């Protein structure tokens, strides 16, 4: 080595710094309590686990605590649901809490069109009372309504529903769960006698055939997909979806049925199964009703016409029937592709029928399984006091009202004797002026409501609008007269129920900003100021309330009276319902109906079916394309009020709204990827970026649901049984293609 080189090496050694403050800012150290290495800057002193507040998979997250406060998250390894994994939203669950958009004080807008002013809680609660009470007194109990959510704890939903219906005495209240799960609820109630998703996630691992219908599991429920991959039985994975989704790519078979041909398709399959004798006659005879009528009904669905209507070849249909009827363990799973339709309930039931007729229910790796959307949609289905009377009871049944009144020590006549209007009828009520006061909790309908057009204008017709939310800048909050600042997930205690009926714990591990209060505390305050506080004396804390919910559940299929409080739920990794006092089977992963006994009065499951309904808005000459909507990415949640608060999640989703269009349609219209185009329906027109991709079928376009423009196009039509909106289909056209790329900047 020359002396020059030696000198250079020497200088290099001296002036190249391998350490310093910048290097140290990323140093990692071994974490406590079974954690691997963690960033030293946020190394925890303790950990505690709780259920994620996004979707209904119900993953458990391990919160890293410093001075009792959460500083970081890793997925919980010990939990039977997610086994150490989480999707991006779970990893980033703390980011939405720290946002500058948080509501920190009650806000009162005295003059619409002007900015609201900060007020104290006393004023806020009194205003709530002084504005809504006179409306009820003057116009009756149907003149004020509430719209709740699947995003808050069961205890909070129950207190909210109890106060609104029994305390305030209003009749109508519904939740945003109407937008996602109402179909499954209705289908299960009619078919099984109770809203009872029968499965455990273990069934993903124990199936031989997994049929996913209208479900993009890979990005909508990534952790359930993880469970599918853990299946060691080399399963056939069949995805039934018009789009070639991420999940369709992973499937062993993708049946790209024509949009809105699903009911025909499943009736056709049922017909094939019967024709080929691939049915479980014993199970049908012993446990089902109305099979003969059903069998008659599906006779018209012959192979040729079903193949024609669905676009699936006769060979594929036959092969599919043979697979389902092979006697192997077949599990059917559906999500929004089924639920959000104009004939959704019957479609869900056509899937249930397939499970019943092949005896694929109550056994490992089987079931007709609805995958739920929101983190506590399942809690809302039992305890929100909206569609059902608390605890899965019936407002219209006197004995149910008496039971609830007794447990709650409230006068029986405070319990409404009629069911609440569904969501869309509440909105219609606002439009027609019948509903004059509205209280919206933790949901953002001004963005998400179907065919929303001038939703803000509709809200403006109200005499008084209260919005209770963790953010005061949502599209809906912008219309509110009174904004009540709510604590978020992670800032309060309570329980969620996940898709597989598992009750899990949510804990307070972060301080709510400013004067924000938990939804639980807000309702307690409102009930006190309203003057009915003494009815809720027992509902002091979320855990005390949980005990009330347990009592309410007694004797119901969802009986959870055997649970010994929050700590047991925490330590056992969640507890599935049922868990009665005399619980025998306390296995961590249980399914329903292993004895073939359903929750109907005669314990038998009826086959329910119907004629095929006409598409309310099929593509036509003027509007030749069909608009499909759905989830855009795993990092975006619904209207993005929370996920947009995380820079990492933002990075992982599309930066602007886009429309997927098939190459053949794109060529015909002269569209290339990236171009701005106009998409118009009979309701409205939006300017949007095009994304030419063959994963969407020819003749259809797809727009994700996460941007507020999408629902300017959708068609307000509803399933007649579940009243769930038909988000997945309407007719659109592309009147303009902006040739000029200048539109892009």
């Amino acid at each position, binding site marked *: 080595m020359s002396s020059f080189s030696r000198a250079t090496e020497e200088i290099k050694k001296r002036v*190249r710094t391998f350490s310093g403050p910048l290097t140290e800012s990323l140093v990692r150290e*071994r974490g406590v309590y079974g954690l691997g*290495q963690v960033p030293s800057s946020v190394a925890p002193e303790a950990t505690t686990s709780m259920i994620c507040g996004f979707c209904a998979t119900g993953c458990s997250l391990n919160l890293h605590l410093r001075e009792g406060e959460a500083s970081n998250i890793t997925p919980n390894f010990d939990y039977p649901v997610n086994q150490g994994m*989480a999707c991006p939203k779970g*990893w980033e669950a703390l980011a939405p809490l720290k946002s500058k958009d948080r509501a920190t004080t009650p806000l009162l807008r005295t003059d619409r069109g002007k900015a609201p002013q900060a007020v104290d809680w006393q004023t806020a609660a009194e205003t709530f009372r002084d504005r809504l009470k006179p409306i009820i007194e003057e116009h009756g109990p149907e003149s004020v309504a509430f719209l709740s959510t699947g995003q808050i704890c069961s205890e909070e939903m129950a207190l909210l529903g109890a106060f609104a219906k029994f305390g305030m005495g209003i009749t109508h209240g519904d939740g945003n769960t109407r937008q996602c799960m109402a179909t499954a609820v209705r289908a299960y109630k009619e078919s099984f006698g109770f809203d009872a998703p029968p499965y455990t996630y273990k069934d993903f691992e124990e199936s031989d055939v997994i049929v996913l219908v209208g479900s993009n599991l890979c990005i909508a429920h990534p952790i359930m997909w993880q469970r599918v991959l853990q299946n060691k039985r080399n399963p056939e994975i069949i995805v039934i979806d018009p789009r070639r989704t991420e999940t369709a790519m992973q499937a062993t078979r993708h049946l790209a049925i024509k949009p809105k041909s699903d009911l025909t398709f499943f009736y056709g399959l049922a017909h094939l199964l019967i024709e080929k004798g691939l049915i479980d006659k014993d199970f049908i005879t012993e446990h089902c009703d109305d099979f003969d009528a059903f069998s008659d009904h599906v006779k018209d669905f012959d192979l040729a016409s079903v193949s024609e209507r669905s676009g699936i070849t006769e060979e594929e249909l036959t092969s599919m029937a043979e697979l389902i009827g092979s006697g192997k363990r077949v599990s059917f799973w559906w999500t929004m592709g089924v639920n959000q339709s104009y004939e959704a309930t019957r479609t869900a039931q056509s899937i249930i029928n397939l499970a019943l007729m092949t005896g694929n229910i109550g056994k490992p790796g089987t079931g007709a399984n609805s995958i739920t959307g929101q983190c506590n949609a399942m809690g809302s289905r039992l305890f929100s006091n909206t569609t059902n009377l608390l605890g899965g009871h019936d407002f219209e049944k006197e004995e149910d009202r008496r039971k609830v009144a007794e447990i709650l020590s409230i006068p029986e006549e405070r319990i409404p004797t009629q069911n609440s209007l569904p969501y869309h009828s509440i909105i219609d009520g606002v439009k027609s002026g019948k509903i004059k006061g509205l209280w919206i909790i933790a949901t953002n309908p001004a963005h998400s409501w179907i065919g929303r057009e001038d939703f803000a204008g509709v809200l403006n017709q109200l005499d008084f609008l209260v919005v209770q939310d963790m953010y005061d800048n949502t599209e809906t909050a912008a219309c509110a007269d009174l904004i009540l600042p709510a604590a978020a997930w992670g800032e309060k205690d309570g329980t969620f129920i996940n898709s597989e009926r598992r009750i899990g714990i949510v804990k307070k591990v972060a301080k709510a900003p400013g004067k924000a209060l938990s939804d639980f505390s807000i309702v307690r305050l409102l009930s006190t100021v309203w003057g009915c506080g003494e009815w809720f004396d027992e509902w002091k804390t979320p855990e005390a309330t949980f005990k009330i919910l347990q009592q309410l559940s007694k004797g119901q299929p969802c009986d959870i009276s055997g649970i010994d409080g929050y700590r047991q739920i925490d330590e056992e990794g969640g507890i599935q319902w049922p868990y009665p006092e005399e619980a025998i089977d306390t296995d961590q992963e249980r399914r329903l109906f292993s004895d073939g006994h359903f929750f109907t009065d005669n314990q038998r499951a009826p086959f329910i079916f119907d004629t095929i309904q006409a598409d309310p808005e099929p593509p036509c000459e003027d509007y030749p394309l069909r608009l499909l909507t759905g989830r855009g990415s795993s990092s975006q949640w619904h209207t993005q009020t929370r996920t947009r608060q995380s820079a*990492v999640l933002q990075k992982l989703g599309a930066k602007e709204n886009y429309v997927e269009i098939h190459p053949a349609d794109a060529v015909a219209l002269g569209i290339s990827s990236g171009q701005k185009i106009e998409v118009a329906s009979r309701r409205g027109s939006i300017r949007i970026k095009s994304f030419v991709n*063959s*994963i969407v079928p020819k003749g259809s376009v797809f727009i994700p649901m996460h941007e507020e423009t999408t629902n300017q196009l959708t068609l307000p039509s509803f399933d007649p049984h579940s009243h769930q909106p038909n988000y997945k289909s309407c007719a659109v056209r592309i009147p303009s293609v902006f040739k000029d790329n200048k539109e892009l900047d």
Partner: protein
Amino acid sequence: MSLVSTKNLIDELLEDQQSLTAVERFSQAHEKATTPVLETHYRSLIPLSKPGEGEQYNFEVDLDACSGCKACVTACHSLNGLDDGESWRDVGALITPDLTQPSQQTVTTACHHCHDPACANGCPTLAYEKDADTGIVHHLDDQCIGCQYCTMTCPYDVPKYNARLGIVRKCDMCQSRLKEGEAPACVQACPNEAIRIRIVPLAVVINRARGGSTLVPGAAPSRITKPSTTFLNLREHEGTATVSADDGNLTPAHAHLPLVIMLVLTQVASGILLFDVISRFFAGDAASPGLWHAVLGAGLAIAGLIAATLHLGRPLQAWRSFLGWRKSWLSREILVFGAWSGAAFAYVATLYLELPGFIDNSIALGAATSGLAGVFCSVMVYVFTKRQFWSLPQTGTRFGLTLLAAGSCFVFPFISLLALATKLGFEFFLRSETRSPFPHSAKVINGPLWRIWSGRVILGSLALALIAGSTVMPTLAFPGFVALVAGEMLARALYFQAVKEPKMPGGITGS
């Protein structure tokens, strides 16, 4: 309900809201754990031994298992304590915009820990270290001056500039985790076990990088850096183009304003000094433009170099930049331009002091040649990135013509006119979407950058008119020069913004 008791209730609720009791109320899991509980999950996903001679660690990605959930990206962010929005892993998608074979494949990607890392090869301060034992390419954060050159040399868009810290940061394969037998964050977090760490023989890495092979369709040729990542089960579709999901994305690249100013001014100054010297040598002092001309050149040189420091995230650390001179054209550019600025001032001084001819001549020659050498280094800085839009003919033509046109403006206006007209013609050709060899760049220029392009054309035409006019009316020369330099600034902004940046597949509508 009395006022007092409501107030008490509110106070009680607000107080309760702020008290955190989870630790007291619930039991601590894994109280006695001494090893990570997740270990059983990832044990098979990382190698049991260290790489031997002629081997290195690499990422192995099973694309069939990657379902696009993107947990790896957030895990990298959270488990490494990165800034808001910062992550060293990304997920994009490949699609086939084809009628018969609809397909999409999500691609998770991070640093490829290349065998021949361009980030390290281009770094002026030697802020990259390729670990001899593991092959991990890691970044020395405290050595970085924030020049961001590695963000241009890496063909995979891996190093990311952190504006808060003024440095670049990147994936280190969680080397401190691997050292303790723990899996990197992304490997731990993948629900589908799609990402693994393996040991790969260097011969394999080198062999598969031959010819025009790429990691995935649309990525840069692997021969540039010899990336170590192995992608398994890439779906290939015969006769069908597979493209990145963000293929139609026309978002312009970063403008790098200080670099635009620095490049134009150093080229203008080099040109002025060159022609100053030429005019003195060949036309004699009588025909030379006078001292102001050389002063203008020296002044612009300094202005250009000051602008360059504004580009640095940590300008006070700029002195480190000589370290990389053996490999880095950027290091050489800094050294040469540093010397040149001294020469330029010496040249002005000799003119002012009217020193003896031989000193004068040698300094003049030094100022002129060092300026040319500096501009040549500038050209090579961009050529080294292997971006086609920045190839030697492309960059050389642009930088050279800027130098000629501006440098000769006051002394040989006809040369200036010829150079500028040629350059404008060249640029018109490149923005033609049908004729340009770089259709993407042409689309970006005609699309989102159309305003800059219009300004460039107006200023260039104005400069042509004024400089032509200056041959009969000399007072037009200076405004002509200003229009020319301003036009070149816009042209240089287009040079940066219209380049197609090589990278791994992105997501829908850009990421």
